[in-house]
């Protein structure tokens, strides 16, 4: 029998498709003024509802039998009934907009669930015991919150020691390296870029066009191409496996120079004339007038520079080798290799690595989104 062989998603799909067909036929009949078709459509809808009632009983049975204590299918089922109610409402009241309005929200909601599910899974798994984390079928809600996982993930590498006197290597060290690198590179980039961008935007000097052309051309060079020569260069300079290798090459950014120049160009020259009358030099004018006026572009640049540093994997992977010089991303990657199937610990470590970024995002969301919308900067 067909009902025996169908499964839940197929049933849902079939029901939704039939709702659509009925809905569409109703609209069609309505727009053609074919009122004679309405009773037939009513009969179709009735038959359809009967079939639905039979199928749904089977589906409920299957749900309970197959999934035991799992409420997910029941949840899906409730959504389905709601959906049908909306469809039937909009058909009987001949209100097509109600249906499309609901559909819009439903698509967005389903999308949101897909977008958020991995995050939920990450956090919930990070709070499970090992056996629960690898249990099949999975438990959507951890039975007991194991905060100890975070401590274990934090200390997972503590067999390795570094420094004098020797200290165990923890995630704290990774955070330390990442934050030192990220903050110093960001601050340095903002300073060098502001100076250069100001010169390009507001000063006249020989070779300005040529230099700016070089800046533009450099933007086209993918960073991956420069890994090998830079590796040789860093070794030659004796910076291999030091903070210098992680920070100095990232103390200037052509992209940030470009971004700031575009912004500085919009600042009227009258301000500079006024500042000159007040006896201010260029340098003072730059830091006391131009920089405060350009706060948004500074925040956007700071976010992008910091995140690029925080998220970079290949550069620190190549330029450092000792465990105590691992950035958070390199540390996480190493842990991923060594932890194997300790997914609860891996999820705890991943959650810890994501937290700072998410916090920054929630506080500075406006600048994030404006920055991306304006610049189209991709990875």
């Amino acid at each position, binding site marked *: 029998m067909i009902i025996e062989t169908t499964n839940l998603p197929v049933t849902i799909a079939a029901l939704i498709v039939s709702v659509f067909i009925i809905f569409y036929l109703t609209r069609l009949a309505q727009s053609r003024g074919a009122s004679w078709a309405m009773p037939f459509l009513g009969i179709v809808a009735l038959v359809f509802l009967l079939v639905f009632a039979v199928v749904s009983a089977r589906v409920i049975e299957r749900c309970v039998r197959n999934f035991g204590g799992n409420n997910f299918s029941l949840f899906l089922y409730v959504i389905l009934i709601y959906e049908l109610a909306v469809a039937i409402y909009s058909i009987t009241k001949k209100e097509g907009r109600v249906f499309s309005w609901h559909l819009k929200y439903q698509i967005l909601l389903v999308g*949101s669930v897909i977008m958020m599910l991995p995050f939920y899974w990450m956090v919930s798994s990070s709070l499970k015991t090992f056996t629960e984390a690898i249990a099949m079928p999975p438990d959507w809600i951890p039975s007991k919150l194991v905060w100890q996982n975070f401590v274990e993930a934090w200390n997972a590498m503590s067999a390795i020691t570094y420094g004098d006197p020797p200290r165990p290597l923890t995630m704290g060290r990774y955070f330390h390296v990442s934050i030192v690198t990220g903050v110093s590179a960001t601050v340095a980039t903002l300073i060098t870029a502001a100076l250069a961008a100001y010169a390009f935007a507001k*000063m006249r*000097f020989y070779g300005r066009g040529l230099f700016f052309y070089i800046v533009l051309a450099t933007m086209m*060079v993918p960073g991956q191409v420069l890994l090998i020569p830079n590796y040789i260069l860093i070794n030659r300079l004796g910076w291999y496996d030091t903070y210098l290798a992680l920070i100095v090459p990232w103390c200037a950014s052509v992209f940030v120079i470009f971004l700031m120049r575009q912004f500085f160009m919009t600042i009227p020259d009258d301000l500079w004339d006024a500042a000159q009358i007040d006896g201010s030099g260029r340098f003072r004018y730059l830091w006391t007038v131009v920089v405060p006026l350009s706060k948004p572009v500074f925040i956007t640049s700071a976010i992008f520079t910091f995140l690029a540093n925080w998220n970079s994997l290949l550069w620190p992977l190549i330029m450092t080798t000792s465990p105590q010089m691992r950035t958070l991303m390199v540390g996480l990657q190493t842990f991923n290799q060594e932890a194997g199937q300790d997914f609860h610990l891996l999820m705890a470590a991943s959650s810890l690595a994501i937290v700072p970024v998410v916090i920054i995002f929630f506080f500075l969301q406006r600048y994030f989104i404006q920055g991306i919308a304006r610049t189209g900067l991709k990875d």
Partner: protein
Amino acid sequence: LGLLRNINPQKRRVIRENFEAYAYIAPAAIIIFAFWVFPVFLSVVVSLRNWKMLDTFDTTSWVGLTNYVRAFNDDQFIKVLINTFNYVVWSVPATLIISLAVAMLLNSRIRMRPVFRTVYFLPYVTTWVAISIVWRYFYHPQFGLGNHVLLNYFHVGELKWLLEPRGVIEMLVAPLGIRISNPVLAGPSLSMFSVIMTSIWRDIGFFMIIFLAGLQNIDQAYYEAADIDGASAWQKFRHITFPLLSPVTFFLLIISMISAWKIFVPMFIMTPEGGPDNTTATVVYYLWEKGFRGTGLLGYAAAIAYILFVIILLLTVIQNVFLGKRVQYGD
């Protein structure tokens, strides 16, 4: 400075401004020259020599184009190029289409738009390394959610996900008795396809934000006129939204292809050692493997990097030729 006093004030000011300007650009210029401009040329030199891990210039010798010739005779490199090509052509259009749909939904009259926008954007903010670990868990054949959903909600068989070297199209047509051996026609391996799904999931937010900005720039008057003419939703999309959005779409297409050619991190985290049968090894992965593991063939790796550079440069040129100045940076 005593010298300057003899020159007339006008000229003096010009010279002074020149010096000042050079001082301003110096810090950035030195770093950019040392670590961005100079390496481009050093890279050429390295790629033309038999440079290995611990070599200096003196311990290497000129080998001409040997490294480039070697690359094109290297089956592994060709495979890696095809893998990356598959990744680009499968991930970019799908991401564009899905994110355009989401952007259009969000652009219509809708409540809680900021909430939805945040939700869709969040994956893009989080770091590749961490989310790759999460998705590796998701795709685990035994303990992952992926197989659980397939088995229990769709009642189809298990998949090996990240461990499956067969191409997705190859797998789809296999039950029909058709065999595909061409690596491009067979599609990305299921392993690569899993990474592609993750990268679509992550990038939707980025594309959506730019599409939203583009959609908001379209004058509402067009739609009002279309409404008066009784245009359907599809006609409005086909004749108003899509043409007016095409510069944005084209821009996104190019920059996402560029960044897709450079993909490395998710494969590196999710499928160690290049994945099953090397099917998730990308160009950058291969360059890392050749350059920084084992003997460390830096000369060969530099040649690979240059080939990648040429591909990306072509895309950039296409962008500039077709788009000209239509894409606005900054304000």
